[in-house]
């Protein structure tokens, strides 16, 4: 762990897609064992930010520092960096041609060079912990959306990342399946997992987050404890956004 127990630091991050500037200077720090939720309307740049942190998108300017190492410096070996940062996607992105066990053990076996037995033992332990032990031989298309997303989280955890990024992990789920996925995330938070979470679930953010950041037009407009940001925001844009959420009945 680096000085100050800092897990992730983002400095002046800029990202454009063609003429469209999606991120306009993001500064954000996540301490070890901290849970930070990013809120904001669609298109505010939440997903792009997470993809940039995981180097899935090249950045235009700024730095991303993970455990004291600048991962955006030229010549950094991206595959090694990605092992430290897990990401879970909105659409699960499980590998449809592999069983649950295959999905979870692929990266430990091929990247960390674990033996099959070793990787499967670890996978089984994780599957059991999250109530999916009986699904180890199922293929993704035989699982419910909630189960698929839990498998995707386990797949990311199997690499023992020091930071986990969750990109609207419940947005593609039927309402009755949201709870089982959020419960998994709650358990991870209770276990001290460092997480940066983009979400539309304001109630969940209030419960779980140590800090909430409101993203608007590519900038973090304000951030602070959930009680402050979600109940008494300073910025008019944040108030507007929360007003719309309340009208939609999601807070």
């Amino acid at each position, binding site marked *: 762990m680096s000085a100050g127990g800092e897990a992730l630091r983002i400095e002046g991050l800029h990202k454009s897609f063609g003429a469209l500037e999606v991120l306009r200077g993001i500064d954000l720090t996540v301490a070890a064992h901290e849970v930070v939720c990013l809120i904001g309307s669609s298109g505010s740049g939440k997903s792009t930010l997470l*993809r940039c942190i*995981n180097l*899935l998108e090249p950045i235009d300017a700024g730095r991303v520092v993970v455990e004291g190492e600048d991962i955006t410096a030229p010549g950094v070996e991206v*595959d*090694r960096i*990605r*092992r430290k*940062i*897990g*990401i879970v*996607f909105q*659409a*699960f*992105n*499980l*590998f*449809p*041609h592999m069983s649950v066990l295959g999905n979870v053990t*692929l*990266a430990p076996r*091929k*990247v*960390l060079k674990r033996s099959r037995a070793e990787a499967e033992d670890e996978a089984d332990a994780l599957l059991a912990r999250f109530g999916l032990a009986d699904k180890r031989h199922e293929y993704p*298309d035989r699982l419910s959306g909630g189960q698929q997303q839990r498998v995707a989280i386990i*797949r*990311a955890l199997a*690499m023992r990342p020091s930071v986990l990024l969750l990109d609207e992990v419940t947005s593609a789920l039927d309402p009755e399946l949201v709870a089982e996925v959020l419960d998994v995330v709650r358990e991870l938070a209770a276990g001290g997992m460092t997480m940066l979470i983009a979400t539309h679930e304001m109630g969940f953010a209030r419960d779980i987050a140590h800090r909430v950041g409101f993203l608007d037009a590519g900038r973090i407009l304000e951030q602070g404890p959930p009680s402050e940001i979600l109940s008494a925001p300073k910025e008019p844009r944040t108030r507007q956004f929360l007003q719309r959420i309340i009208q939609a009945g999601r807070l």
Partner: protein
Amino acid sequence: MRGSRRRSIAIAAVSSVAFLAAIGFAIVNAPGWPRVRDSFFNLEVFAESWPVMLRSFGVNVQLFLIAEVLILGWALVIAVLRSTPGPVFFPIRVLAMVYVDVFRALPGILVIFILGFGVPALRLPGVPRDPFFWAVVALVLLYSAYVSEVYRAGIESVHPSQTAAARSLGLGQLQALRYVVLPQAVRRVIPPLLNDFIGLQKDTVLVSFLGTVDLFNRAQIRQSATFNYTPYLVAALIFLVLTIPLARLTDWLVARDARQRAVTGGVR
């Protein structure tokens, strides 16, 4: 429901038999029929031709099997090279593209002649002169161009989010291709691959132009020996017996694939 189904099957059967009988009757009673029968369907020639022809067909089968294995490998290499990302690999992509363009454009017989007659005529030391060898090379070059495009379509049909998921777990570019993209891509293109192999099966007769005695060449030899065209019909029959089951298998795989997609609501 079941009764009406059985009824439709019965009607289809009776109608087919009656229809075929009518055609058969018309042909057999046509004025030129005896001459056609003697020339194309001569049982005597058939009986003495088919064993030796079937043996010659071994050349085609051998050619097909060797070429097919090489094509599956070489075409995959071309497809992967053509799918490489980034500006560094630009020349490689162009090279692969030119290869595909050239060998899809050339008539097969032209390539066979250039390689089979032209290259041995150079009398370069160490260069094989065996026509069978050059037939294999020609077929591999030609068919790999088609098959690599089939592979590439498969690779491109796998959603980029699959690669993103693989890379996010720390898998490298090649590992993501090898373990995540290609297995899904190949599975999806098996029906069109089989389709190309039906074409390859037939094009093995091109080797006969280099003087190798394959099924087609044997048919010509038998035809000149007997002054009868039945050997050609025997050759046709042999190809039919081999190709039609492959065509039905392809149809079945396509139908199964469509059913699976309908059940799972498409593959992500």
